[in-house]
């Protein structure tokens, strides 16, 4: 069994391309060194740099290269110009990119062509993509306006518009160029201490090799031609586009989950990124997908098609825009189509959500709209009969025509969390008004009357506590016992005269045995009551059978159910973290609910098969062990066990091999 997981992990690792995936379930994006303040930093002068770097100035920086500074440099003497953001090109006999460090290395006949026309040639080149600085060393020749000067090394700090050069004339010298003004070098100026340090990349994994690289500073690099490391071999590609923007909006993901995901960014720029994916899951097996990002500082559009190589396709469109500092709008539109290639779909459904949020003083308003389009296509001509009822379908009965278009719209108001006096107790208020509509299938039937539209309004409050120390450790080692509580109460009124009360009460106790070992126990009780008054028995006849109009299932409900349910959940957790390298977590949960949960059918849930249960499984045990294999590799093994439910759910297992930094 373990071999299967190891093989799966290895295959997924190869698929991951090791470099830039951000949607993968199995793997995370390549770990990269955090961006270090890109300042011209520590001067080599011992007097000016009392730190460790000064004590061993000849030593190469440790891995990752420490970048140190005496101070953040003063503002550049000239305003920022396009020069520092201009694309530049690197050609060499061999360019290597280290995805874990976000460092590009080039060797042999290196030529760097800056955006202002300057050419710098040398033997060896290093570019730190995040620090946005490079150094080129060995037989350096700097050429501009047909003038060439030879030297030993040249370093460029784009973010600070500083370049440092070690020319060799009759003797060596130190020159500093400010704001691209090569006409007026500052002679003899002390450089930052690590200006010419060469990063130690021994032991680092090369993600790709190339001969040309076009760099858009702080945004992207296009490598051509690229040979990408697939673990066992390097596979040639005509080009590889690397996006390393610090903008988190590029990480928005419009793809559904998959066991393994291999993204290949093939086009893009400062505001866009196009990615082809090779994915795998247990339903579609290996398949292709596509995703496109259009991103600015305050907005994004993400489009995806997944899978594109199977008939059942899902198209997603995510949008977001911060209209003003206090207002944002976001939407999600999803279409699911059964189609051959990209021909006219046999059947198609859609879902749309639009959310508008506006912040107020100590609260915010949100308008939320959901719309479901159960069949986007016109009514087909083919039909059959189901229990004597005429039903239409596209081509075959597995693609039924469902004309429903349910929707709801809600306007909610949510207050901030407020502390009650100086007590460790907080409260938060909320209210809501909305309407639900379905003109085809009634939302509800009561007394023989169909209701196609329902208005509702709601009020709610939650009261929470901070950690309250029940018993302080007299030794002062903080092996304390804490108590935390949550109480939530909500009432929702409907136009069909009834109301639903929901009340949640949760209490948790944490015992710290040691900073490395904690035990947590939590008990939660949720009561939900649907109050119809005199019509209670009509709305809830207490039948043992319940027909769910949305799944078509007739379910065996606990006898005696009259619209009042209770969920009782007792959970315990043990967390043991002996070091940064090892973590062990176990969670146990027991539920005693009314109505009793009902085992569901085996259905496609997400990227695999699962049981679509009604209610919470009574018992669950989760085990998770994480072990850090190396600086960037983390092994995570987790296992979930479900007991005594449906007779067919015993355990599930996950094996996660993660790249982390």
């Amino acid at each position: 069994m373990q071999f299967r997981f190891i093989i799966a992990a290895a295959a997924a690792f190869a698929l991951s391309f090791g470099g830039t995936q951000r949607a993968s379930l199995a793997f995370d994006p390549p770990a990269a060194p955090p961006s270090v303040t890109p300042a011209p930093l520590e001067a080599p002068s011992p007097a000016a740099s009392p730190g460790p770097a000064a004590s061993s100035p000849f030593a190469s920086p440790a891995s990752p290269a420490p970048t140190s500074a005496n101070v953040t440099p003063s503002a550049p003497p000239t305003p920022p110009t396009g020069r520092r953001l201009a694309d530049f090109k690197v050609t060499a006999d061999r360019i290597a990119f280290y995805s874990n460090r976000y460092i590009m290395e080039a060797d042999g006949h290196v030529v760097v062509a800056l955006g202002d026309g300057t050419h710098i040639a040398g033997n060896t080149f290093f570019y730190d993509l995040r620090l946005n600085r490079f150094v080129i060393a060995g037989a350096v020749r700097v050429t501009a306006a047909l003038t060439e000067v030879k030297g030993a090394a040249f370093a460029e700090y784009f973010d600070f518009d500083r370049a440092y050069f070690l020319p060799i004339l009759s003797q060596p010298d130190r020159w500093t160029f400010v704001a691209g003004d090569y006409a007026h070098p500052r002679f003899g100026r002390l450089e930052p201490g690590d200006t010419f340090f060469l990063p130690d990349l021994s032991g680092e994994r090369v993600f790709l090799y190339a001969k040309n690289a076009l760099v858009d500073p702080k945004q992207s690099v296009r490598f051509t031609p690229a040979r990408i490391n697939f673990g066992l071999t390097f596979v040639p590609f005509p080009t590889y586009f690397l996006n390393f923007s610090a903008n988190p909006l590029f990480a928005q993901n419009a793809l559904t989950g998959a066991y393994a995901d291999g993204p290949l960014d093939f086009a893009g720029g400062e505001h866009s990124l196009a990615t082809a994916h090779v994915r795998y899951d247990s339903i579609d097996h290996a398949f292709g997908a596509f995703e496109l990002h259009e991103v600015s500082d305050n907005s994004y559009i993400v489009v995806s098609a997944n899978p594109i190589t199977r008939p059942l396709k899902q198209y997603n469109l995510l949008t977001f825009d911060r209209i003003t500092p206090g207002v944002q709008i976001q939407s999600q539109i999803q279409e699911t189509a059964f189609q051959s290639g990209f021909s006219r779909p046999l059947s198609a459904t859609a879902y749309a959500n639009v959310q508008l949020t506006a912040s107020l003083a100590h609260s915010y308003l949100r308008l939320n709209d959901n719309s479901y389009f159960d069949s986007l296509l016109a009514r087909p001509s083919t039909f059959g009969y189901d229990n004597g009822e005429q039903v239409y379908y596209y081509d075959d009965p597995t693609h039924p025509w469902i004309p429903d278009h349910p929707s709801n719209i809600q306007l909610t108001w949510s207050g901030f969390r407020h502390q009650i006096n100086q007590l460790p107790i907080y409260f938060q208020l909320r209210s809501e008004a909305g309407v639900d509509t379905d003109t085809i299938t009634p939302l509800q039937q009561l007394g023989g009357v169909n209701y196609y539209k329902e208005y509702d309004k709601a009020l709610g409050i939650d009261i929470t506590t901070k950690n309250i120390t029940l018993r302080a450790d007299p030794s002062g080692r903080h092996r304390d016992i804490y108590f935390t509580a949550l109480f939530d109460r909500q009432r929702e009124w409907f136009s069909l005269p009834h109301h639903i009360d929901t009340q949640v009460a949760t209490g948790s106790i944490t015992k710290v045995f040691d900073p490395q070992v904690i035990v947590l126990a939590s008990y939660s009780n949720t009561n939900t009551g649907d109050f119809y008054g005199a019509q209670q028995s009509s709305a809830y006849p207490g039948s043992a059978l319940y027909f769910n109009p949305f799944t078509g299932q007739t379910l065996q409900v606990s006898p005696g159910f009259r619209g009042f349910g209770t969920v009782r959940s007792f959970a315990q957790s043990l967390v043991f973290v002996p070091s940064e390298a090892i973590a062990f977590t176990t969670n146990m949960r027991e539920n005693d609910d009314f109505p009793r949960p009902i085992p569901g059918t085996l259905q496609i849930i997400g990227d695999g098969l699962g049981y679509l249960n009604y209610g919470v499984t009574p018992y669950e045990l989760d085990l998770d062990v994480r072990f850090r294999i190396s600086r960037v590799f983390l092994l995570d093994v987790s296992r979930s066990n479900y007991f005594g439910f449906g007779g067919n759910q015993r355990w599930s297992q996950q094996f996660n091999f993660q790249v982390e930094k």
Partner: protein
Amino acid sequence: MRNGPQRWIYVLVAAVAVFVGSNGSNGLPARAASIPTPVDSAVMQTPPPLSATATPSPSGTLVKFAGQILDYRGGYCFFTTGDAYRIAPDVRIVDAATGGPTKLLPQTRVYARAGFDSGTGAIVELALSGKKLPDEASYQSVKKFAVAMSTEVPNPDLGTGEGFNGKPVPVIFVVEVPPKTPFGDQIYLATDASGWSATAIRMDRIDALHYKVTRTYPSGTRLLYRYTRGSWQSADVDQNGLAMHSRLLLVRNTDIQSRNDVVYSWQDENRFSPDNGSALPTPFNPVPFNLPPHR
């Protein structure tokens, strides 16, 4: 003032330097300027000291230092500190481990232990290695041998004040999550250094409301980060309901650093649907008042 020959040397130096005009104000990269005439800058320099050992006299005493070679040419050996040192005509190039002959060449990236004649300041022995060599004497003891035409002048960019020395600093992230966070959910730290993966760094629960993780970064690190529950659809949002801006961490030269953050809400949190255990087959859940999941 410089004497005549020196002055001409500097005029010549300036004349052959690389000069490119700075950008215009339109944000577009400017083209390289025509040959500049930085004579004024050059002649205003103070006379360049050749080194502290301008009149060498061999002493026979060796001072050894280990470092990495940046370049080796023109009778000089450059180290990654940016310093250039004279090479004695009869320099011995040996293997750092054995002291015997070596196949390594003194060139960029090669590690070297340089033996300086304390009298001449020149390198008389260069022991090469493909691996980093242990430190020997201090930088100060060889700094005086460095050769440069220009007088060393302070760099106003470096100024004064606190600096970063790049030492590894354990950073403890502690986050308080909303009380309604589902009990079994995992909390993750997403950072720009990990490509904003929503599951980049998993945190460990320390009590009912708090999660913690410790990561070590060199001081000077500037890290952007967010908290998630495993996806960007369940990322943290601000108390005002709007999407969060990335949180910023700047690692200082401390022995340990901690960040205490609060997540007020998650993006997928529906405050009007208390978590009462998925879809019970009842009229109040999931239909008709919470619309069904999309088929």
